[in-house]
């Protein structure tokens, strides 16, 4: 079990290494997927939203890095 957890953690660290980026990017793709398929939103709108979502994700990840939570 511990080995499996370690493998998952290693894969996560290799590809992302930041929970804000992981959640932000996943949410961005989920939202534009829903907009494109359920609502039939124009490509320009979904594309722009994806870019905005990605920029917000990296900005939040940087903000979190610069202002770490105090415990």
């Amino acid at each position, binding site marked *: 079990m511990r080995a499996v957890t370690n493998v998952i953690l290693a894969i996560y660290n*290799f590809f992302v290494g930041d929970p804000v980026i992981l959640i932000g990017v996943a949410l961005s793709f989920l939202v534009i997927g829903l907009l494109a398929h359920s609502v039939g939103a124009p490509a320009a709108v979904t*594309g722009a939203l994806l870019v905005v979502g990605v920029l917000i994700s990296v*900005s939040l990840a940087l903000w979190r890095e610069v202002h770490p939570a105090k415990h």
Partner: protein
Amino acid sequence: MFHTLALGFTPDYVAGTAAFLASTVEFVEAFTIVLVVGLTINWRSSLVGAALAALALAVLVAIFGVTLVKVIPIEVLRLVVGIILVMFGLKWLKKAILRYSGRKAFHDEEAIYEEEMAALKARGEALPQQLNTFGVVTSFKSVLLEGLEVAFIVITFGATGSTHAITSHTDSLGSATIGAALALVMVAALGVAVRAPLARVPENTLKFVVGVMLTSFGMFWGGEGLGVNWPLSDLILLPLIAIMLVASFILVQTLRVPSATKSGAQPLPQV
């Protein structure tokens, strides 16, 4: 036509450039460890370890690069690769922005060299001509770990580029592999000439450029995988790259610490 005749296929310059730039960063980092092992243990162990790792990486690229295109449907491949590329690219971009803004120490190859050298010397003398297991493993691990990121970029750009209209007549996997191989040859040649850590290679700039490229291509391919018909088709990549560049510059300026403003982006303790 000329290029097709010379190489046997039409090159995909985008995949080749991305692989070359990313590989340069990673191979410079791996070279420092290979150099330390070579000088402290022996060159035989160091080069055997590095060669074994290079072979393992080549096998990975050959297996996954070809299999992905054949087994996974194009839309799914673009979506999955796109999402992963965006995350992977943002990881690189975040590090580069933090370093430019003075909030994270620059990657210091000379410091790593000194540190590793001291650690290996503390282990005691090694016989100059005999294969040393520790030396082989250390060299193998460093090249493999640094090279895995290169392999990932070669595979994703190779597999996804091959399925795309802009490069439908090109060999993206071959181009990306050549890009990575050229970086390896360049770093090795520089290393042999300098015989010291390659501290002058602008690693952070390369990381910044590659981060922007990976993120932009990831958004493009991921969007296509979700059925987004981008305006301007492939040409939308240019505005996407421009937006990421401008946003990144703004983030660097916003996060810049006062001491870094006065004397440029100087290395500061890691946050």
